[in-house]
């Protein structure tokens, strides 16, 4: 959602605006002096540059002002805005690029190093004081603890297999401890069915019933009873992620006065620190600081999943999912936050990457840091005896923590020849380290039983370890999804061997391991610095927060970039576990000629599952790079698109469903219509009575009855939905003369004229009536659906082309309720209610209006007819509309007064050949095509559309004209939209089309069906036989005049 600055109202969402096309295309001074080519150029030709483009916008939902904006068409950035009439200002490129890591080199990046480092936290299942929860998985009942995820609870019960794979049906185990999970995607069955949720992100609750899935879930067949909603949020700084970097950034903002939102997907703050068990005191102190700072909002269980224009981010907050059946029904289960942030700090962390080795998918193969998280955060040991397979230092800390927690570490297998100080540290703890080695195979069926190890690069078996756990670390991928969605560019970092954020056009900074910094002290320092910078940029005095001391770590050894590992012959090496894509599949893709990861992705489906390739994306790029013999930096990643995690349609739909799916407009008489059994038709957003069926009536008989009442007695209709615009000012008449095709200025006060409005291309845009209220004041009516568009149209011309005209336009659509009173008896009914009104034809002629009282109410009565019958439109205050309506009911009762709806209105007007703009026209129809040359002034020097009538195209004899159509069989009904052809036998395609049916009805007055149609050269075909293909047969029809009822107008005056 762009944020467009209105020159008056300031920045507003783009949804408040209407686009008006290229700016500085003035209406020609004298269109009649232009050649056809020059006029066509004005009408149809516009620039289409790449780069800055001056265009017109209207703040439709705000101050209704037109203004100009210079927008860069390649980035959508609004470079400047200026008022109509002002010169286009010079524009420089906006802002330029924000570096994802500004002033990075100035920051202290490392904590103390050297020596053995801190002791790992020794604890298992520390949450002894938490509540026990009972849940069911695949039919078996288990116990878990409050604070568990479904995955950690399953692991605590010794269950690791949680799925079978989608294509190959191989058993798959819990692979990670977070949103990146590719394997353990499960179905919740109770309390409400929900498919495809990673077990690693489902918080455990009492009574949870879940099942494992074969790679695909099942949608619920019953309606979801939960509420979902959305809110708009605003902040100075949005911090995404509450790990060490995000917490440090937020701590910098505490008490600064800045409005900060800290969004984190977990129930508690700490991020990766919860998994490593580091700095627990600092985490709890910072949590307390943040939750007591009045301007800081902490959104728990909230995943920011989309990053859009102008720092507009979408997040989903899971508010009651974790409560299960205990969730209060009046609280939204999930809430979408639409966050507009002045600045954003992304502290989204990093995902550990796997390696493509033989049989790397058995349950028991797990990312090393995830296993560490299960031990430290959940107090759960995911296995008893583990082999660790790594290319970098980080898995050593995991091995040490797990060993301290009671897992027997059989060996650490490191592809690097020299694993440095961390290896020493492990050996000191009694762990065997095999540098220069790799895992070349695994065994086990539903669970890993053994791991085969060889010298790195060789495939013959050298060692075999019995193990139920294989912890893997192939390095780290910064979570750059949101940064990339923001339009940020990634660059390949040689040292890290992965892609890191580089620069972005939006005001965003990336901190911590999301930017590729992996040592804790560096992460904290960078987070704090990012927070301070963001605050200072927003004008707040920020103070660098006190950061905790980080225990010494062994000296780091550079990681080794490894993607594929040769292994046991014929064994699959999985790249994308969720899509069952292997190295062999990618080999086939490159062999077939795929040269880009975007192509291999689509060829193999790698990265297209609902985990969006979080653990496999960079691995796939690395494998493809190896296969093509190029460097991964040349290949890049596939495009990151929202949503970062799967978001349910229910959450996205929120409350915009059922009766609230779209605004509904009703008239002051709506309740009466409902009470009296009306069925409703949607006209724009209006609910209009369609017809009023009486006992047992179908639509056809109800409409025939209503039509007969209007033609023979008296009938009435709620016409309040017609658009009404008050046009005031000394130049009002001149203005309307320019806007309408016919002459308005000659209209006398007290009289009404029908008018047609066209676009400059001469095509009909709207029609309605114009009442002259006073010398300098008119009331214009528009079609129901077009009221806002007509007012915008008027404002556009007044503001951008004719600012010198002293005219103002004001919508008064709802200021008046309008009742159409129709039929030969209407004069009698009106006369009985309006004693002061002289209702005789000579006193109150057609197309006149009078101010009087009707039923004691102040009223403006117009003699207008949209049916050809004697008719009135009575306008009163909507506050008194019901009183008027009920008075008409009572006064009309002796004449059998009948309420009628839009269907009857359509029949009555169509019998008279009155077109409905938008039904009988489609933007390619001139007034002349409609047979309304009489409404096109020959006298006025110019009006909008006039020049186009001198173009050859508008004078073609084969233009489509509005005509009547009568089927040979009077009972045959032509569906609207039916095409018309010349012959009784269809020729071979392409069949020449002569036109189509625009309106079709059954007429009580004519005693038969009839239709209106746009037909090529139609007026010259009257009497001609054409054919209409309907349901496989060609129905013969005769072209007729569009005026089929009372062509002499005898009924107009009653």
């Amino acid at each position: 959602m762009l944020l467009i600055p209105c020159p008056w109202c300031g920045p507003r969402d783009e949804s408040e605006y209407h686009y008006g096309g290229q700016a500085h295309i003035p209406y020609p001074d004298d269109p009649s002096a232009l050649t056809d080519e020059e006029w066509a150029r004005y009408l149809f030709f516009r620039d289409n540059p790449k780069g800055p483009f001056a265009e017109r916008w209207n703040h439709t939902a705000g101050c209704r002002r037109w203004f100009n904006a210079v927008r860069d068409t390649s980035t959508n950035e609004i470079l400047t805005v200026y008022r109509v009439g002002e010169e286009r200002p010079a524009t420089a490129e906006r802002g330029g690029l924000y570096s994802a890591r500004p002033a990075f080199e100035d920051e202290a990046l490392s904590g103390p190093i050297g020596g053995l480092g801190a002791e790992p936290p020794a604890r298992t299942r520390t949450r002894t004081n938490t509540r026990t929860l009972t849940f069911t998985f695949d039919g078996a009942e288990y116990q878990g603890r409050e604070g568990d995820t479904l995955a950690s609870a399953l692991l605590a019960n010794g269950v690791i297999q949680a799925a079978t794979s989608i294509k190959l049906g191989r058993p798959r185990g819990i692979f990670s401890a977070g949103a990146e999970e590719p394997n353990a995607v499960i179905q919740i069955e109770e309390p409400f069915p929900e498919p495809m949720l990673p077990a690693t992100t489902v918080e455990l609750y009492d009574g949870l019933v879940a099942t494992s899935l074969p790679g695909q879930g099942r949608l619920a067949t019953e309606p979801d009873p939960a509420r979902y909603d959305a809110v708009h949020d605003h902040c100075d700084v949005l911090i995404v992620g509450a790990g060490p970097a995000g917490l440090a950034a937020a701590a910098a903002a505490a008490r600064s006065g800045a409005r900060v939102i800290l969004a984190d997907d977990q129930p508690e703050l700490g991020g990766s620190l919860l998994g490593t068990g580091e700095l627990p005191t600092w985490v709890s102190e910072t949590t307390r600081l943040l939750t007591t700072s009045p301007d800081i909002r902490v959104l728990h269980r909230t995943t920011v999943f989309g990053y859009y224009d102008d720092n507009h981010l979408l997040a989903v907050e899971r508010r009651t999912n974790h409560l299960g059946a205990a969730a209060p029904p009046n609280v939204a289960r999930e809430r979408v936050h639409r966050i507009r942030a002045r600045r954003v700090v992304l502290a989204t962390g990093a995902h550990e990457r796997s390696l493509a080795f033989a049989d790397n998918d058995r349950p028991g193969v797990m990312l090393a840091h995830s296993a560490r998280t299960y031990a430290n955060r959940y107090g759960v040991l995911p296995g008893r005896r583990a082999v660790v397979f790594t290319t970098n230092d980080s898995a050593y800390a995991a091995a040490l923590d797990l060993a301290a927690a009671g897992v027997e570490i059989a060996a650490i297998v490191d592809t690097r020849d020299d694993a440095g100080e961390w290896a020493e540290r492990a050996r000191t703890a009694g762990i065997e380290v095999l540098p220069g080695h790799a895992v070349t195979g695994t065994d086990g069926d539903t669970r890993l039983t053994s791991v085969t190890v060889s010298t790195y690069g060789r495939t013959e078996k050298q060692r075999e370890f019995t193990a139920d756990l294989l912890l893997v670390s192939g390095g780290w991928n910064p979570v750059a999804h949101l940064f990339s969605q923001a339009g940020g560019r990634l660059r390949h970092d040689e040292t890290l061997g992965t892609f890191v954020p580089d620069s972005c056009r939006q005001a965003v900074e990336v901190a911590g391991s999301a930017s590729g910094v992996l040592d804790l002290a560096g992460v904290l320092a960078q987070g704090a610095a990012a927070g301070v910078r963001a605050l200072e940029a927003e004008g707040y005095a920020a103070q660098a927060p006190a950061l905790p001391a980080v225990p010494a770590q062994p000296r780091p050894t550079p990681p080794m970039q490894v993607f594929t590992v040769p292994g046991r012959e014929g064994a699959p090496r999985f790249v994308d576990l969720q899509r069952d894509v292997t190295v062999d599949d990618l080999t086939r893709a490159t062999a077939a000629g795929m040269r880009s990861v975007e192509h291999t992705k689509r060829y193999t489906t790698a990265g297209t599952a609902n985990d969006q390739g979080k653990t496999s994306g960079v691995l796939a790029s690395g494998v493809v790079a190896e296969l093509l013999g190029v460097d991964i930096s040349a290949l890049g990643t596939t495009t990151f698109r929202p949503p970062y995690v799967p978001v349910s349609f229910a959450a996205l739909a929120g409350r915009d469903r059922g009766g609230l799916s779209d605004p509904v407009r009703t008239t002051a008489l709506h309740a009466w219509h409902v009470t009296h059994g009306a069925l409703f038709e949607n006209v724009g957003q209006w609910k209009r009575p369609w017809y009023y069926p009486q006992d047992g009536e179908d639509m056809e008989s109800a409409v025939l009855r209503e039509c007969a009442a209007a033609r023979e007695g008296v009938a009435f209709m709620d016409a309040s939905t017609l658009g009404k615009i008050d046009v005031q000012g000394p130049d009002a008449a001149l203005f309307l003369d320019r806007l309408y095709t016919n002459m308005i200025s000659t209209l006398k006060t007290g009289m009404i004229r029908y008018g047609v409005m066209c676009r400059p291309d001469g095509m009909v845009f709207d029609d309605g009536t114009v009442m002259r209220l006073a010398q300098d004041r008119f009331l214009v009516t528009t079609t129901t659906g077009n009221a806002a568009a007509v007012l915008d149209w008027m404002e556009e011309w007044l503001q951008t082309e004719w600012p010198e005209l002293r005219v103002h336009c004001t919508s008064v659509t709802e200021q008046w309720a309008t009742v159409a009173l129709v039929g030969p008896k209407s004069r009698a009914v009106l006369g009985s209610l309006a004693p002061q009104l002289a209702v005789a034809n000579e006193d109150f002629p057609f197309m006149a209006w009078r101010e009087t009282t009707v039923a004691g109410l102040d009223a403006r009565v117009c003699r207008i007819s949209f049916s050809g019958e004697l008719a009135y439109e009575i306008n009163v205050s909507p506050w008194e509309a019901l009183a008027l309506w009920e008075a008409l009911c009572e006064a009309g009762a002796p004449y059998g007064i009948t309420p009628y709806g839009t269907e009857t209105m359509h029949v009555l007007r169509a019998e008279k050949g009155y077109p409905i703009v938008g039904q009988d026209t489609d933007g390619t129809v001139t007034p002349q095509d409609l047979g309304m040359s009489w409404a096109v002034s020959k006298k006025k020097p110019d009006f909008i559309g006039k020049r186009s009538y001198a173009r050859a195209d508008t004078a073609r004899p084969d233009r489509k004209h509005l005509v009547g159509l009568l089927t040979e069989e009077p009972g045959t009904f032509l569906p609207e939209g039916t095409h018309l052809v010349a012959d009784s036998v269809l020729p071979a395609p392409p069949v020449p089309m002569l036109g189509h049916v625009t309106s079709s009805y059954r007429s009580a007055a004519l005693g038969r069906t009839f239709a209106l149609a746009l037909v090529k050269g139609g007026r010259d075909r009257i009497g001609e036989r054409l054919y209409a293909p309907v349901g496989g047969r060609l129905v013969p029809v005769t072209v007729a005049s569009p005026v089929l009822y009372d062509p002499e107008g005898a009924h107009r005056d009653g």
Partner: protein
Amino acid sequence: MADTALSAPPRSPLAHDAHRLAAATRASRGAIRLAELPFLAQVNVRLDAKGGAADAVGLALGLQLPLEPNTVVRTGELTAVWLGPDEWLVVGAPGSQAAVEARIREAAGDEHVSVTDVSAQRTTLLVAGPRARDLLAHGCSLDLHPRVFGAGRCAQTTLARTQVVLVARDQPRAGFWVLVRSSFAGYLTDWLLDAATEYLA
């Protein structure tokens, strides 16, 4: 027959919904207050802010028409709401529209000023209480934080995809006026009551 009509009191757009608004207010236990303020006089004024008429009209109304976008000026019973650089909505006590219109026309004299009674065009919803801002944030993309949208601020924007005029009332606790086109008022009421579900006991 005329007598029956005369005896019927005018009906505001939300007359049907008054009891629902009151029930929600009660059920929220002070968290939100929802009510229709029916029949307020509303007069649309268009004039050149730089011309002489602006001062004359201001003098006649006893308030300066606000020139700063998206602000309101109040005196006594009258509130002038900025709608555009040459457009204001003067809101007054029910029934005063004819008098207000006459005062403006008289003050304007021969200057080109457009005055239109739009009292029935929109109705006014009061949205107040400690959770008023949260309630509106469900459907309004503007930042309504008191730092940004404090007393004296107004805005034309959309609420639940419906065009509205929002006015922050003088006291922070006094909440907001939501002026909505009468035809949308029923829908917006349904929307507000549904949005309030979470704040109701």
